């Protein structure tokens, strides 16, 4: 009988525990679900408002025009003016950041002594922690005046200065992810290259970098993705003129900057002008989603080790 008692109490304990466990599990599930629901909600609203927008404005007007003047009397909805602004500033930023970041990563992983590493790595992290609004001022009040001394005809607001400063902003991402990729190259490959009479540089350029190509590619794409979605720097320093141009010396307006412009103004909700920001937001979202998926795919290759 004693034994029976013992057994039954044990069963009860088990039941209590499993109830508690189920509750905790449900709580964890709820927390995980919040982020998914938020994402779904955002995408849902984007799709809904974009749908409304395209009820009034045709696809052809949106993608077949290069003038963007939805806030004026003479309305044009050529989104290419905004896409070109985004593409231009992002291009300048990646052209700035990729060589610098890659060389920094090579230096950190292959050449730097422990002491220098322990100094440079945190400095890069500080760079990543600077609020982007400060980068914006930096672009407008320091970088652009400096560039104006070299490049005559550079406007006060321009894609070049904003792009370069955005490049500095994404430099830490690129350097750090590239360094991870280079670090992940097995030492046996480097030894193999040394044993074949390769010197340090030849080993890096012929064996190490090709082997870490996926990771470096992922770093570049994530960097571009950050630049495409970056708002504050381009709002402050690139101007707010939706020029359809690939000339980095003039002012441009990016998709993000336009959204800010409308959100800050006194555009009533529900109007066509209001709905444009959702159509633009949707376009922006598709861009960054595609970039992030691309980077994710490359990084998965790195993790799997199939280079």
């Amino acid at each position, binding site marked *: 009988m004693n034994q029976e008692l013992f057994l039954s109490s044990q069963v009860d304990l088990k039941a209590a525990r499993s109830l508690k466990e189920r509750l905790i599990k449900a709580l964890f599930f709820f927390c995980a679900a919040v982020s998914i629901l938020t994402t779904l909600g955002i995408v849902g609203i984007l799709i809904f408002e974009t749908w409304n927008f395209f009820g009034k404005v045709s696809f052809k007007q949106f993608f077949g025009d290069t003038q963007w003047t939805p806030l004026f009397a003479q309305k044009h909805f050529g989104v290419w003016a905004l896409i070109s602004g985004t593409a231009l500033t992002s291009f300048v930023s990646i052209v700035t950041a990729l060589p610098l970041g890659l060389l920094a990563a090579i230096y950190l992983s292959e050449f730097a002594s422990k002491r220098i590493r322990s100094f440079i790595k945190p400095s890069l992290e500080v760079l990543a922690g600077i609020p982007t609004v400060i980068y914006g001022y930096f672009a407008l009040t320091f970088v652009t005046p400096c560039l104006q001394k070299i490049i005559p005809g550079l406007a006060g607001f321009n894609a070049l200065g904003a792009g370069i400063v955005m490049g500095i902003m994404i430099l830490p991402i690129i350097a750090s992810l590239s360094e991870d990729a280079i670090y992940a190259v*097995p030492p*046996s*490959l480097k*030894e*193999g*290259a*040394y*044993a*074949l*009479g*390769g*010197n340090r540089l*030849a*080993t890096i350029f*012929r*064996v190490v970098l*090709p*082997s870490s*190509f996926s990771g470096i590619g992922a770093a570049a794409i994530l960097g571009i993705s950050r630049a495409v979605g970056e708002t504050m720097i381009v709002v402050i320093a690139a101007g707010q003129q939706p020029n359809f141009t690939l000339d980095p010396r003039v002012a441009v307006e990016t998709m993000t900057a336009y959204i800010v412009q409308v959100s800050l103004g006194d555009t009533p909700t529900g109007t066509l002008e209001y709905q444009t920001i959702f159509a633009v937001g949707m376009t922006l979202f598709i861009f960054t989603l595609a970039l992030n998926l691309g980077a994710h795919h490359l990084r998965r290759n790195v993790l799997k080790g199939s*280079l």
Partner: protein
Amino acid sequence: MLKQDIKKPKNIFRSPKMRSDNLKAWFGSHEALNEISLSIPTFHVTAIIGPSGCGKSTFIRCLNRMHEVVPGTRIQGNVYLDEVDIYGSSINPVNLRKRVGMVFQKPNPFPTMSIRDNVLAGLRLQGMKTYDSDEVVEKALVRAALWDEVKDILKRPGLSLSGGQQQRLCIARALALEPEVLLMDEPCSALDPIASAKIEELIHELRGKYTVVIVTHNMQQAARVSDVTAFFYMGKLVEFDYTEKIFTNPKYKKTEEYVTGRFG
């Protein structure tokens, strides 16, 4: 050349291809080699045996200055190649490694390169142009006994080959540089018995053309492939003699205990 032949000119050690003299090596403060003096006979196969951690890998890594690639290592003493001190101040280790090739424990073909490009990797790493190098590729792969298996798939990735083929590809890669000495650091330890047998066969064929130094855990393998054998224990050279002598009638008790499998 049969084993009996090489015993006749009594001293194959007289004009060695490589020679170490009181060689000491450290990892940080750990002494991995203690005063190794060893002569490696020209065009013969030298096996280095001994239990794990006895310094045999460290020793051959000192022969092409790969030991110093690892941070925190250092050496003392001398190593000679054709009686020239390879640790001399005028010696560039990069040039040395062209003459003293190496094959590692785990096959390490370059993953981004095709079979053909792997064979040419050494030349390219040295900045040589390789437009017209079909002959080099074929010669190296023939010597590594891989040509027949890969001649129609030279464009495929090196990693698409089996483990044993990958290891022979690494041997071909080393041979493409026409080295004088080939160092092999347990080249069969990651391979199955059939692939190992192929590598052993290959080592037999390299004899007489190259000076081969092979580190191995497998005593049968050492007995089969080598002309002379060195037994290392705790960073010291215990015994060095003709392979037959080491395995049938060693001078020291420690050697006998090891080769008969009483420890190790």
